[in-house]
């Protein structure tokens, strides 16, 4: 316990030489001191842990309390009416004495739901196929590089997805899908320049697919080998074994992956701000397929785009209202994912938001 030649040792030796019996005594004292120190360390670690988990409540408290004035002033019409851009300019220009509290976030909320749903529709089938390929079908030689690729895709910063989307996907949509006539026809509704809901869906699906692949592949890989063996030994083909045995067993993990991917999609700000046109326009189904070509904006990218409005109290509160919607949605999704997988691990490489 006490290292040889240490001061404690020599002290003990010295006291022994003096004819008393302090050796036992010394050990007891240091043991007590040590146990106090140990308890102190445990308390300190515990304090840090509490701080970590209290953080989410702090965030909720601050964000929502800052949003309350706007939510109170508008009530349900905050959710069910449009005109965000106009309201924002009014509030920004309002004279100091009479602030303008009128905001309507319907296009932003609907836009967030549209992009998320569209991205999931593209990403889920594709990602599931990829996860099956990765865990069950791909040649052994391809597996490692593919795993690294998925991890890298998850780690590519969102601003790079945005840049590539803006300079590849958006021009492609503008050239291939939008004719001059169509643009002229829509000129009174919105400008069609390629920055659109469709571009947002495509870029967003590319961003969430690696996360979903990683989680779905984990879930498939975690299916106990004995189920696969039992099914194969019954003479069921490999593909049917995947479809009827492995996917059902991995269902919860895959579901959790989908929910987490949805959470990521809802909260994505930068890439969408770059490719969706940054107009609080609500794409209308009445325009037929042009719906997908209209510019729009999500809750998260609104915070980025309107950040300069933060110095005006009303604008600030409105942006906090956007943030509180995002926060609540993501917390609910996280809890659902946890419920689905019984606390599945989060994976996804060194990704930025």
């Amino acid at each position, binding site marked *: 316990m006490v290292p040889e030649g240490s001061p404690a040792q020599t002290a003990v030796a010295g006291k022994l030489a003096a004819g008393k019996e302090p050796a036992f005594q010394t050990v007891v004292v240091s043991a007590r001191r040590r146990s106090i120190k140990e308890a102190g360390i445990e308390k300190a670690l515990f304090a840090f842990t509490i701080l970590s988990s209290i953080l989410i409540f702090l965030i909720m408290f601050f964000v929502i309390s800052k949003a309350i004035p706007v939510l109170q002033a508008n009530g349900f019409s905050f959710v069910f009416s449009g005109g965000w851009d106009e309201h924002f300019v009014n509030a920004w220009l309002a004279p100091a004495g009479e602030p303008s509290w009128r905001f309507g976030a319907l296009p932003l909320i609907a836009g967030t739901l549209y992009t998320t749903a569209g991205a999931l529709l593209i990403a889920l089938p594709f990602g599931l196929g990829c996860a099956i390929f990765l865990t069950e079908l791909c040649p052994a030689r391809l597996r490692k590089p593919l795993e690294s690729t998925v991890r890298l895709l998850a780690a590519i910063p969102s601003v790079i997805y945005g840049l590539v989307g803006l300079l590849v996907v958006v021009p492609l949509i503008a050239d291939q899908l939008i004719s001059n006539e169509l643009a002229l026809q829509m000129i009174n509704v919105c400008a069609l320049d390629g920055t659109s809901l469709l571009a947002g869906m495509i870029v967003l699906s590319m961003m969430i697919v690696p996360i979903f692949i990683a989680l779905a592949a984990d879930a498939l890989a975690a299916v106990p080998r*004995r189920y696969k063996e039992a*099914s194969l030994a019954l003479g069921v083909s490999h593909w049917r074994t995947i479809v009827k045995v492995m996917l059902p067993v991995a269902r919860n993990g895959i579901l959790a992956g989908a929910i987490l991917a949805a959470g990521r999609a809802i909260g994505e700000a930068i890439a969408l701000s770059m490719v969706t046109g940054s107009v609080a326009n609500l794409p209308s189904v009445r325009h037929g397929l042009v719906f997908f070509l209209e510019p729009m904006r999500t809750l998260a990218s609104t915070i980025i785009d309107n950040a300069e409005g933060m110095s005006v109290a009303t604008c600030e509160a409105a942006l906090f209202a956007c943030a509180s919607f995002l926060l609540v949605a993501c917390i609910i999704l996280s809890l659902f994912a946890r419920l689905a997988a019984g606390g599945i691990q989060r994976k996804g490489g060194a990704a930025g938001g």
Partner: protein
Amino acid sequence: MQQTGITGAGRNATGIGNNPNNSKIMVQDISSWYGAQPVLKEVSMPIHAKSITGLIGPSGCGKSTFLRCLNRLNDLVRSFRLQGTITLDGEDIYHPDADVVLVRRKVGMVFQHPNPFPMSVFDNVAFGVREHNRQIKKRELEEIVVESLQKANLWEEVKDKLQASGLSLSGGQQQRLCIARVLAVMPEVILLDEPCSSLDPVSTAKIEELLLQLKNSYTVVVVTHNLGQARRISDYLGFFLDGRLVEYGAAAEVITNPREKATEDYLAGNFG
């Protein structure tokens, strides 16, 4: 390829008629490796129809690997290699043209640890049948399930809880459920890999009794760790040591009068 293949083969071709030695499976000179590691060395043995062949030997001797060669379940291991031939009713199961799925339908397997699917008791038994014949009528399916559960001596215990999860049964019941699941797809050969190693003595006795019934209609191969069990149930016995088949013959012969010193030592309990 779906249904006709299996029932046709399952009911008619027992293999006795066209094989004078009465052997269902012939294993000739097989050697196998996991990567560079040899597992089986030049093993040859017949497996006789409608009888129980026991495989014994110390752990790591290759008997489970041997068993998994018989239904090509070793194909799952990427580094696995095999030399030599194994024929089922005279047809090489490792032939490039052989249909591995069909082989596994004919050669069913029960595993060391009971592994029912996380589905209901009924669905566990029905799973393979539905997969092999997706147009099957509900009543037919029910008949097969009931019959299989009866054959597996499980019907009386589960008839009131067919919709309960297969995982809710006791260990011994789960293992019999796995046997019923195999019986339902009407195989010709049933492989069992230490089926009783994780069960209590009562459940073990029930399984042994079941196997003795089954040998009247099926060819059964059992890997076992338990010499008493090997004595009680097998008609033929093979003794494996270090990947070689040291001794093979009629069970009574091998047990009472082993030819090899190693077999004698093993039976005497000197190792393993």
